[in-house]
């Protein structure tokens, strides 16, 4: 029996009290030895900040294993206290911040490894369905160059929107542009 899917609708502007009643932006403690802070600002096509969005991230642990039954590579460790999932609203200035760790390499199509990456879903008023993008890491030049998905994007400028940049305070910066010249690469998943 084939069933047609229920269509997506926008999350609207009034979700915070239901979806974000607890802070879920910290996947690890701030003093974790390999903590990585990822932050950025979301902007719309007019360059205005987007103050009413929600980001969700999904990632493997440092060993490259997902905390999910389908990742049954038991030779790789799982940590009880790392779910790989986070949620964060944008604030009045369009900013978000996740506290997490860098994931390991995970397998990709035809057994080719994928460079360390974090999946991102964006929900907001004006988005009739979520936008999906990926965060890659600036210190993984060789792995990024060999990554099957990154290297499938021919437009160099578009591809480079997926790689976070290092900042002087040790955090990573990953800004999001929903539209325009600098638009972030979004995926059809």
């Amino acid at each position, binding site marked *: 029996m084939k069933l*047609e899917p*229920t269509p997506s*609708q926008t999350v609207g502007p009034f979700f915070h*009290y239901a979806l974000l009643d607890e802070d879920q932006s910290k996947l690890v403690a701030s003093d974790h030895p390999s903590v990585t802070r990822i932050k950025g600002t979301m902007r719309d096509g007019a360059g205005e900040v987007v103050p009413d969005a929600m980001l969700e991230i999904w990632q493997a642990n440092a060993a490259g294993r*997902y905390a999910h039954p389908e990742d049954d590579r038991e030779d790789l460790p799982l940590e009880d206290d790392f779910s790989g999932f986070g949620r964060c609203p944008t604030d009045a200035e369009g900013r978000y911040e996740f506290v997490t760790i860098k994931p390991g390499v995970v397998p990709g*199509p035809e057994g080719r490894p994928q460079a360390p990456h974090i*999946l991102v879903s964006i929900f907001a008023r*004006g988005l009739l369905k979520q936008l999906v993008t990926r965060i890659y890491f600036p210190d993984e030049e060789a792995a990024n160059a060999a990554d099957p998905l990154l290297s499938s*994007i021919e437009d160099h400028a578009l591809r480079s929107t997926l790689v976070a940049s290092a900042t002087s305070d040790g955090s990573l910066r990953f800004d999001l542009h929903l539209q325009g010249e600098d638009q972030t690469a979004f995926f059809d998943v």
Partner: protein
Amino acid sequence: MVQQQKGEIGGYRRDTESHPPYLYPDYKSTRLRAPEKPLVISPHTLSEVTGPVYGHGLIGELDNDLTRQHEGEPLGERIIVTGRVLDGDGRPVRNSLIEVWQANAAGRYVHQGDRHPAPLDPNFTGAGRYLTDDEGRYRFVTVKPGAYPWKNHDNAWRPAHIHFSLFGPAFATRLVTQMYFPGDPLFDHDPIFQSVRDPKARQRLVSSFDLETTEPEWALGYRFDIVLRGRDATPMENHR
């Protein structure tokens, strides 16, 4: 069925036709937020076929009864909303988090951004959670939300709706949607509802009145089944 090679993964079916486009100019907020560059086709790798196993520790006993979260009972028409969460092949989606939120009976959200001059109800927050059971079933008790005005266009009103957020088994099955009530006179005037272009797909957003769910002397029942994406049995996406 094709034998799956180690490291190959059956992806989820793409079902673009059922969903609204990103850009639907009648819904004004899409104009500056819809991406303009073509989407990059992503294969379904281990990253997309896994997903958050989330919410299992969060659920409290009264989280699916929105009428019992405060000292008194909320005003409005008490209703029961129930249904099943299925995948595109008709299999139940089990033990999976559903989050809901809605306006109160007067059409007002408990949200500081909601400026509609309708009363808040001290006995109603309008947020709930539930984990689907082994048949994919869920059940909420709440009050019927009111319609409310918004500023999209002149004299714009949203039809009564309840927001639903679902995870399903994978990152690729994540769905946020809205459930509507049958026969709402505002359907034809609502660009968010109309953004789903296929009329049959649009109807899948509308619950149905259900006498079996209705409890005598207590509450009307509405049924709303939700279908998440189906999955290919064979490793298709990896061979694109």
